[in-house]
Each structure stands twice: as C-alpha cells, then as structure tokens.
C-alpha cells in the first residue's frame, strides 16, 4: 500500500527558526526581568529621593535595569540575525571522517 507523501521539511530551516524563537524568548525574559527590577526599585525607593540624590538615583537605581531592558529589547529586535548566527552549521552534512 503506497504511503501518503509527507511535506519535505528542510532540517536547516527548522534549526534557524528554533534558534530565532529561542533568542526572542531569551530577549523577552530579559526585558521582563529588567522591567520588573525597574518597577520594583522605583516602588521601593518612592519617597526616599531628596534634592541631593537625583543623580545617584538615576545612576544606581534607574540605569542598571534600564540597561537590562534595552539589552533585552535589542536581542528581541536582532533575534533573526542572532538566531541565524547561532544556528550556523547545525543542518550541514559533514563527510564521514572514516
């Protein structure tokens, strides 16, 4: 009995898509963590910033999570090239060493 023909899936394309999705999720997690840290720090620090603390507040409380947040966003935006780069060589057939 003839078998029904299955769609041909390029294993290389699958690997690239997998990598891109993984990088996107990774970037998204960083964004969420950065955002969470920023909001929780702002909430905890509320009412404690005086006139001679603004610069310190921006540098030590706001800037670090903002850097994480921006880094995460950058990873999400560049997920495709990063994914391609990471998946390089995953689907290649290599000649047997023997």
């Amino acid at each position, binding site marked *: 009995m003839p078998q029904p023909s299955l769609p041909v899936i390029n294993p290389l394309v699958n690997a690239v898509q997998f990598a891109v999705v993984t990088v996107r999720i990774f970037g998204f997690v960083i964004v969420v963590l950065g955002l969470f840290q920023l909001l929780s720090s702002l909430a905890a620090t509320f*009412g404690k910033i005086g006139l001679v603390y603004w610069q310190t507040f921006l540098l030590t409380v706001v800037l670090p999570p903002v850097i994480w947040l921006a880094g995460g966003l950058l990873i999400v935006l560049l997920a495709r090239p990063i994914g391609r780069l990471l998946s390089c060589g995953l689907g290649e057939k290599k000649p047997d060493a023997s």
Partner: protein
Amino acid sequence: MIRLFWILILGLAAGCGQEGGKSERPDNAEQFLVEELAKQLNPNTPGLAEFYEEWDAGNVEKAKESLLVYFRNKKIPEAAVPKPLPVELQVMRNALDAWRGSFNFQGVKGRAAEPDGPIDWTYQGPRDDSEWTWFLHRHFFLREMLVLYQEQGHEEFVIRMQDYLLDWFWKYPAPDHRSFSASWRALEAARRITDSWLPIYSALRAKDVLRDETLLAIVAGAGRHGEYLRAHHHFGGNHLVTEMMALATIASVWPEFRDSQEWMSYAADRSLEEMNRQIYPDGAHKELANHYQWIAGSSFQQLYEVLGGSGASETAEKLRPGMERIWDYYAKVVRPSGTGPLNNDSDLEPNKEQLLTLADFYQRPDWLYIATSGEKGVIPEGRASQVFPWAGHAVLRSDWGREADWVFFDAGPYGSDHQQMDRLHISASLQGRDLLVDSGRYVYRDDEWSRFFRSPEAHNVPTFSAHSRITPDTEATTPQEQWTDFAGVLPTASGWIPLSREGEAAWTGTHSRTVALGDGFVWIVDQVDLNRPDEAIFRWRFHPDLDLEPSSEGWSVMENSKEVARWISASTSEKEGAKIEGQTEGKIQGWYSPEYNDRLPNQVLVFRSKPASRATFTWLLLASDTGIKQANLTANKTGSTLVISRENGAETYQLDFPSSGKSKGSAPKIHRITEP
C-alpha cells in the same frame, strides 16, 4: 563623573606622572638664559630697548648687563608678593634642616640631600608618600631659608638656597604637555613660583648675594611657569583657582613678557568663571571642606588683590561679591573656640584668626565681631544660627562668644572633591568646649588609614549590618528648603539618608536625623525605617582631650578628671554601648586627626542595637554647670520627649515625626509642652 573620565583619558594621553624631560646645566648658562629671555620678553617694553639693541648687535655681555640692571631695579606691585613669613622657631628650624639636606613637610621630616650635595628630587620621604615629593617640588623651604638668611645674615644659607634652586631649574625644564609629575604638576608649579621664587626675587633682587645666574633663572623660570600654567593648567577645583592666581601674579610682577597681558586677561576670565562654577550662592566652596574653603578662598583673595593692584579693577570688582560670600560662610561656620569644622578632607583651620585680616580688608565689622568673639566690631544681623541651603550645612549657635553652644550639621551633597562619607554627621561644642568631633583627613594614601578617615565609621553617623548608606550627589543643583527651623522653641535642623540592602539596587530604608540646640544641651533624634530588620551601629566620637566614664544615667564626659558633660540615650530598640579608643587591631577605630599626617587616639562610644525594622534612637549631650539638675529622655515610635529639670522649673519638649511616614518633604517639629 564625566570630568573624571576626561581627566583619566587626558592624563593617559599626557603621560601621567612622567617627569617633564630632564636636562643638564649648560656651560654657558647665563648666555643660555639671556637668549631664552630675549625670546620671551616684549621688545617694546620701556626699559628693555638697550638690552635688545645690544642683543641684536651681538654684544652678549653688554646685553646681559643691561638685562640684569633692569631686573635688579624694577619695581614690583606689593599686592602680588606674599606677606613675609613670621620669624618663628619652627621656620628657623626648618630652614636650618633644609640647609643640612633634611626637609620637613606636613610634620614629616626626611633627608633628601647630603649636607653638601644636591637634592634627590625623587625622594618620597620616610613614609614613601608622593605628597611629600610634591611638597619638595613646591620649594617652600627656600622661602624659609630666606628668612634664616635675613635674620642671621650668613651667606652660606643664601648660597645653598641658590644651589638648590638652580639645581632644580636646570634639571627640570617645563614639559610641552600637561604633566602630573611632582616637578610640573600645575599646582606645584603655581605654588613654587608664587610662594617661593617670587618672594626670593622680591627680597634679594637688588642685592649682590643673589647671583646673576639665579636672577636670570628666576625671571626665565617665571616665563616658563607662565607659559606652562596658561597652556596646561588643571581642569577645575581649588587647583585651578590657585593656578590662575599664579598666572595673574606672574603677569602682574613681570609684565615684560610678550604674553603677560594675555595671561592676565585669561586668568581673570577663568577666575570669574570658576567663581561661579565652584562657589555656591551661599558662599560654600563646592568641595565642602573647611580646609579647601580656605585654600580656594585664599587663592581667589590673592588673585583679587593682584587684579586690583595691577589696573584690572573692573574685573576685581566683579569678583568682590563672590569674595564676600566665601568669607561670610567661613566666618559663620566657626566654632566658639575659633577653629572651623573638620568636614570632608579638612585640617583644623584657625578660622577666627584668619578672619581678622579679612575683616579689616573688606571693612566688615560683623566679621570682626565674630573673629574677636564679640570684643570688637558690630554684632552680625539676624540670628546666630545659620543655614547654608546649597551646601546643606546648618550651624546652630547660641551666640558669637567664646563660650557659646554650637552644632555643625551636614545634610548636604557629597562635595565635588575631597569627599568623605559624612552626611548627617554632627559636631558639637557646649560652653565653648569641643565635645563631639569629626575625625579629620590624616593622609591621602591608598591604605586602610585613608579609607577609615573617609568612611562613615569615622563620623558620628550610624552604619548597619546588612544595609549601606547611599552616597549623595557630588553637587547640589537647587537649594534645600524647610529643613531647618530657627524660629521655633529650639533651633533645629533635619536630614535623612536613603539606605539599600547589600547587593540590592533599590533603596529600601532611610535613616532620618533631627538635631536641636537648647541652653546647655544638644538633643539628637534618629529614626531608622527599613523594609527588613537590621542592626544599627551608632558611633559618637569625642575630642581627644576628653575621657568617657560610665555613669548611672549613661556616660560622663570628663576633662582632667572633672565631669564637663553627660551623655544620655534612649531608644525603642534594645542597644548596648561600649567605649573604643585608638584601636588598630581588626577594624581601625577611635582616631582623630587635627592636621595632615598627625593622628591622636580619641574615645568613641559605640552603640549596637538589636535588629529592628523601625526604631527611634534619641541622644542627649548635656553640659555640666548649666543649672540642669536632671534630664529625662524617652523614645517612642512617633518621636521623642525630653524633660529638662532646672532649679527654677522643668521644660518638656516633644518631637513628633511627620505623619506622612516615608515622605521626606517635611522636617519633624519640636513643641514645648511646659514652660520653664
């Protein structure tokens, strides 16, 4: 931060710490100097025409003679020359030591030359401290040798002095780039030419004892220093002010240089800029250290006098309002005993003594009143307590006398330089006696001693087992308001500091402090508010002349075995107190430094509380012999109560924390419940 970045980058580019290229004395030294001066001087200067005629004609000897006659007889504006050193034993001793090859800087003596040999200009002193080498290159010892010569008349002193000067001159030509080396760091160059070479030139130029080569070297050296300071001065801070003062001084004393006019106008313009950049509207220098208030103020003052004495009176007048603000601040922070506070990197400056000449110069009878503790002059208008809203400094004071009660409270920014972690520190004197003190600065080194003197542990502020104090901004951008109350029942000042748990970015706690000054007592109320419980460690450091002994109500503060004050405390959280003095094992504690390189053990009370999230701690420093029979202090979650019992009745004061809890917009209020 940005400035620091540029300093590092430019420092690296300029070859940080490298010497400015060494050279040797040429055989034809005097001709070499005449040639250098022919290039540096302005041929259109009246009096130098003959020199240039001879020089252009190739008559080197005649040209040299003409130049020497001119520079030996020229007049110098008096305002530009530093006042002569007092003929004191210490000055004479230092001069004699220098003659023998030993040098004394900031209390540390080291041998940098054999009795008849040249100085090893790279020597860092017996403590291997680069600060010592910087002082060596400032040549202040030459001025002390000048005093010795003037007093005793022995030529060997002045011969040796010139040997030193010429040895340095030929070894260290000016580099063509910004240098941070001891020889040509701009501050050292500025100090050398104004505090050493100029007084020597001024005093000896008309005398044969000053060799021709020395005279020519000083004048050519002035040109080198002028060019260097104009092109490679520091970026800012008190260094730049001193450097611009030196540049203006060179231009004023030696207007014969081609670039003197440009140097003068550049120094005047930069100084005006720096006055606005470095001085807060309330008069405090932004480094927020009493010592550097004096250093920067003195440099501005000398510049002001040089400008006024050299025809640039218009620029001088522009500086005047700033000058008066600087000295007004300096006058109003003074302790009853006459010294200034030891805030940030400071030595114990004699503010009152220094103010005397300034009161005369500016015709300020109110400063004279402060400087003489009310014996002369006119009492300053308004209250004796003062607030400096930009500096964040509050001075609570009963009056201007020698036996006044005084509190210095720091609730301001970190300071633009020479910082210490001293926010919310309190220094206090009662009946004119210094009781609670700051620790001073001791040394500028990268070691545990330097770290201790800069740390919160060297100040009257609490630290925490698992929380850190947040360092404030280096500068204030707006004045602080509503943190002092001088019109209430007791003059008070308040401030707070955010706290963060170790390793966390969020500020999850605060320490708030209010200090009030009463008749013969200082009352301090601390509130600690944390998200998670923690131990608070309070330290109260007393003047080194004092001893602390436990008593039934707390601690007795003793001087020469007599009780001079009492220390009482109360809190909502259990705490234990102990005394520490001169500790070097483990963590350094219990040290006081009245001036650089000098440290004395002093007694410190250390109180460690049980862990708590919210706690009130209240402290009372009470002078003896003020008619106060008893004092009762209580602390609760909403504030503190103080009952002072005197022979003629009792006073009850109540301090209530603001009801808004974490909001830091309003300071606690003190009410008097019962009248005396």
